[in-house]
C-alpha cells in the first residue's frame, strides 16, 4: 500500500459538552476520492476545519505529505499544497471571476507580492487563472462580478481557485451544493478525472455523486467514524443502514 497523502490520527474536538470529533482517523491515498458522509451535525465541517487549519484539535494529529502539520497555520498547509473549497463560498464577491482565480495563482506562485505591476497583465498569473476557469467551464464568465454568479457557478469558481494552486490534495466541502442536476452531473464528471491529478477528500450530500465517485467512503455520525470502506461495503453495512442511510439504501 502506498503512503497516504493526508491522514488524521485520533482527532478529537469538543465544544463545551458537544463532541464534534471523537477519535477520527482517516486517510487519503494517492489517486482516490475519499468521501465523508454523515447526517447534518455529524461534525463534517469541524473535521474539515481541523484538517485545513481553521480549528486546532484538542487531541490527535494531522499528517500531510508525511509531515505533522497539526500545529501549522492554514496558510502553511496551503503552501504545502492542500487546497480547500468552501461549503459557503468564500470568494471576493466584489471582484471579477478572473480576479478570484488570479488570486489563487498568486498564492501558488509564492514569493513577494508585487506593488506596481498589474496582476491581471502578468502572463503567468493570467494563464494559470484562465486555464483553471476553462477547465471548470467558467471561462466565458471571466469578466463577471462574482456576486452575480449563481450558487452553482460559485461552486465551480471555488474549484477553479483550488485548481490554480496546483495542489497535492483537495479537500472539498460540498462542491455540488446548489447545482442543478445538469451542473451536478458535469461536476461529477470533472471530479472523476481530477483524482488522477491529486486525491480528493470529498464531503458531499448528493448521494448519487458520492456513490458514482468515491473509491472509499467514511461515515461520520455524532463525531465518530462508524465505518470506512468501498461503496459496496458501506451499502452492505448494517450499522450504516440504521444510523444513516435508513430507507434510502
Amino acid at each position: 500500500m502506498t503512503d497516504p497523502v493526508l491522514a488524521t490520527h485520533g482527532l478529537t474536538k469538543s465544544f463545551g459538552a458537544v463532541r464534534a470529533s471523537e477519535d477520527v482517523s482517516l486517510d487519503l491515498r494517492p489517486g482516490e476520492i475519499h468521501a465523508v458522509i454523515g447526517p447534518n451535525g455529524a461534525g463534517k465541517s469541524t473535521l474539515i476545519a481541523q484538517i485545513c487549519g481553521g480549528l486546532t484539535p484538542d487531541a490527535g494529529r494531522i499528517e500531510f505529505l508525511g509531515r505533522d502539520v497539526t500545529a501549522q497555520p492554514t496558510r502553511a498547509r496551503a503552501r504545502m499544497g492542500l487546497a480547500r473549497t468552501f461549503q459557503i463560498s468564500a470568494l471576493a464577491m466584489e471582484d471579477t471571476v478572473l480576479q478570484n482565480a488570479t488570486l489563487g495563482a498568486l498564492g501558488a506562485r509564492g514569493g513577494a507580492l508585487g506593488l506596481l505591476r498589474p496582476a491581471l497583465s502578468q502572463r503567468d498569473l493570467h494563464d494559470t487563472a484562465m486555464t483553471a476557469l476553462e477547465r471548470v467551464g467558467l471561462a466565458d464568465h471571466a469578466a463577471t462580478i462574482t456576486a452575480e454568479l449563481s450558487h452553482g457557478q460559485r461552486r465551480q469558481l471555488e474549484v477553479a481557485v483550488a485548481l490554480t494552486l496546483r495542489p497535492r490534495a483537495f479537500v472539498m466541502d460540498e462542491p455540488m451544493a446548489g447545482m442543478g442536476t445538469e451542473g451536478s452531473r458535469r461536476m461529477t464528471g470533472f471530479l472523476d478525472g481530477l483524482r488522477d491529478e491529486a486525491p480528493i477528500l470529498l464531503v458531499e450530500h448528493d448521494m448519487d455523486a458520492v456513490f458514482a465517485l468515491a473509491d472509499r467512503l467514511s461515515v461520520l455520525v455524532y463525531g465518530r467514524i462508524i465505518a470506512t470502506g468501498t461503496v459496496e461495503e458501506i451499502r452492505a453495512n448494517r450499522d450504516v443502514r440504521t444510523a444513516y442511510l435508513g430507507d434510502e439504501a
Partner: protein
Amino acid sequence: MTREKIINTALLLGLLAVPAWAWAVDEPFTITLATRVAILALAGVGLNIALGLGGLVSLGHAAFFGIGGYAMGILASHAQSYTPLMETPFLIEGTKSMPVIWLTALFAAALAALVIGALSLRTSGVYFIMITLAFGQMLYFFSISWPAYGGEDGLSIYVRNGFPGLNTLDPIQFFAICFALLAGALWFNARLARAPFGLALNAARQSPARVETIGLSPFRLRLAAFVISGAITGLAGALFADLNRFVSPTMFSWQMSGEIMVFIILGGVGRLYGPVAGAALFITLEHLLGGLSEFWLIWLGLLLLLVVLFARGGVIGLLAGRQVAHD
C-alpha cells in the same frame, strides 16, 4: 474612458485650474485654499489605502499626520535656531530642505505605523477603531506635554522650507509641489490597487478565509497596507505644517483623524479620487459656509448624513455610478 475616469480627470484639472486662475488674477488666498485641498487630499489618499482597499477603519491617522508635521517642525526649528538635533553619538543637524524633511516624515510615519499596526491589527471592528484612536490620543497628549518643541503652543517656523530650484514662498510654486506629490500618490495608489498586493489586500477585506487558504497571511497584508497608508499621511502632515509654517498638537487630535475620514466618506470609500473630491468639497464648504456662521459644521454633518444614507459611494459614486471592476 469610463465615467469615473472622466470625473477623476475633471477633478484633477479643476484642482489645477482654480489656482491657475487665482494666480492670473492675483488672488493668493485662493491658491492657499487649493494647496490645502491638495495636501488634505494627499492625507486622504493615505488613509484610503488602509480604509478603502484594506477595510481598516483607522481613527488614528492623525498620529501619522502629526508625526509628519513634527518631523518638519523639529528639523526646521533646529535649523532656524542653528542648534543641532543631537550631538552624541553622532551629530544630527536640523534642515530646511523639503526633500530631506519629506523622507524623514515618510520614514518616521512608516515606522510608527508599523508599531501601531502590529499591535492594533490583532483586533478588528470596533476594537480596531478604538485602539487606533487611543494611539492617536497618546501621541496628542505626548506632544502637549513635551516642552522642548513648544508643548501646547506648538512650533512656529518663520520661513517656509526650501526646494532646490523653486521659490517655495511663492504660493503657486508651493501649490505645484503639493499637487505633484498628490498626483504621484494617486498614480501609486492606482498601480497598487491593481498589483498583486492590491488584489490580495482587497480579497483579504472581503474574505480573509480565502486569502488564508491560498497561502497568504491577511495580517501581513494589512500591516503592509497600514504602513504604506501611514507613510503617505505622514508626508501630507509635513506639507501641511509647511503650508501653515506652524505645527501644533492639534495635528494629532482625533478631530483631525475624523476630518481625514470625512473626506473619504464624502468623496467615496475605496474610490481612487474619493479623497480629492471629499477634501475639495470640505474646504469649499468651510470657506463658503464658514463665512456665514461659526456653526457651519452642522451643515457638514447633515451632508455627511445624507451621503451615508443615500449615496454610499460618496460624491464619486453619485456621479460615476457603481464601482467598475479593474480590467
